């Protein structure tokens, strides 16, 4: 990745974060914390990694992305909108009664959404089914799924991991957003999922641990995944919940709460400052 490319990604990620803030503010509800922690990954996936076509969202040969932690729909929607799947101006209609932007991803209403998710633990199984189905039909398309570190407390996740390794799904990448917080507090205190990397390794994954806010590391991990044969890859990324909005960072309270008008203004001001600096204004 050239420095210019990296800067472009950082700029996009900042815009995606603004989209998350605008969407949850407009909805007066939703999940900004985990959307912001995964914003860099959303950005890299939709602007660099995924072979997708915003003009033809259901194109058969596309790579698939399943947001297993479906409550962070604002992050996915913001990335999709900025990638051109639908107007960015629609983001603040999130969760409104007449909006197609449902509170959790709906594959039948939102262009670019590959699977309806929201009930934790199910998305990864669906991603396994997609990878299995694509492999069975000799497709070269790849499947990516993003899980929360709280989500992996769901038993079904481990059923899915077993199946992914059993069927040697080297076209599948499982990403765990390890921001360390869930609704009730620290994941380690609520019901510790640690060691996450060790567990995934024991379940038959090729594993990579990265800083989820570092585009060089994100790129290296996703490229490495493409070289792995005969087993799925898991990327465990350490992140900061609420990343880039000062009052939200590392606060479990911002898991599922929308910013009010003043908080919205402050967040947008902070993100605008980052954006201006990136753009050299």
């Amino acid at each position: 990745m050239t420095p210019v490319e990296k800067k472009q990604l950082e700029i996009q990620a900042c815009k995606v974060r603004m989209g998350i803030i605008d969407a949850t503010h407009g909805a007066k509800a939703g999940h900004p914390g985990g959307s912001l922690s995964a914003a860099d990954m959303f950005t890299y996936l939709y602007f660099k990694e995924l072979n997708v076509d915003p003009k033809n969202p259901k194109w058969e040969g596309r790579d698939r992305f399943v947001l297993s932690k479906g409550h962070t729909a604002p992050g996915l929607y913001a990335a999709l909108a900025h990638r051109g799947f639908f107007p960015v101006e629609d983001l603040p209609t999130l969760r409104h009664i007449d909006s197609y932007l449902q509170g959790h991803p709906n594959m039948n209403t939102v262009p670019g959404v590959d699977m309806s998710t929201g009930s934790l633990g199910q998305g990864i199984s669906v991603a396994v089914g997609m990878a299995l189905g694509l492999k069975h039909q000799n497709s070269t398309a790849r499947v990516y799924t993003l899980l929360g570190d709280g989500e992996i407390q769901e038993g079904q996740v481990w059923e899915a991991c077993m199946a992914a390794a059993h069927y040697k799904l080297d076209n599948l990448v499982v990403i765990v957003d390890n921001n360390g917080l869930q609704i009730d507090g620290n994941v380690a205190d609520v019901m510790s999922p640690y060691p996450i990397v060790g567990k995934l390794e024991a379940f038959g994954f090729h594993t990579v641990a990265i800083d989820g806010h570092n585009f060089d590391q994100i790129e290296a991990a996703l490229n490495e995944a493409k070289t792995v044969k005969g087993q799925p890859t898991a990327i465990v990324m350490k992140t900061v919940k609420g990343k880039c909005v000062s009052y939200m960072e590392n606060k479990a309270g911002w898991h599922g709460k929308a910013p009010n008008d003043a908080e919205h203004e402050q967040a947008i001001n902070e993100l605008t400052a980052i954006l201006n600096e990136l753009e050299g204004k």
Partner: protein
Amino acid sequence: MADVKKIATRDSYGKALAALGAEHENLVVLDADLAGATKTATFQKAFPQRHFDCGIAEANMICVAAGMATTGLVPFASTFAMFAAGRAYEQVRNSIGYPHLNVKIGATHGGISVGEDGASHQCCEDFALMRTIPGMVVMSPADDVEAQAMVKAAYEHEGPVYIRFGRAAVPVIHEEGAPFQIGKGEVLKDGTDVAIIANGLLTYEAVVAAEELAKDGINAMVINMGTIKPLDEELVLEAARKCGKIITAEEHSVIGGLGEAVCSVLSEKLPTPVKRIGVNDEFGHSGPAAALLKAFGLSSEHIVEVAKEMCK
């Protein structure tokens, strides 16, 4: 009805899958370590590359099937009714029903005729659970011929389908190649005094009951209602208009199944006296299937008794 051939509808399921699989490359089958019991092994033997064992992990299997459906395959996901409709209910609702994916659920070992395994495996709630999911087709075949026709119809139908098959061998009452259409009931015998609306293995019992009732001068109509959802409301209303009295009979709880579906239609559109025959809000227990069915009143004798009482 003497000396009729008996076949378990789970056998019909395996046979129908293998036959359809030969015609359609995109048909795949998933099982959860029960291929021998659900009879998907019949398909597996013919098409090993298209049979995916998911191990004892039904929740995952249901969602894997959903994922496969998004890639253009037509998955039939199979396990016992207890685990398909029961354990994996929420996976069926959220990952198949809500996105309206083209997954077929072939659930075997429905009802108390599971027998010796006892209550833990005797699912009498699956119609109720599956009926509540918007867009879900729910079916229960009366015999081998109807079961095979339902599998074919399910493949041809775009959208989620749940079919319940039985473990025990049941009499074959249809001619080979009898027509079947999703959402259409079938009048097996016309009548004027009482209409018996049944499905699954109770359909045969209803036919036998009608013969018995005829001896006492009671002219019973018999309807085989293979599709519970969408229900053939027109036929239910026609039966009510003709007979003025309805009996429903199913190997399912009286709560939430065919009986309640029929009652809902009638109470809103044509209030008619109804007696529901089914499992009466209780769990089953171990025993031979035939003895259990008698003990729980899922028999021609009990239908006759109820009909006579209604026709007094």
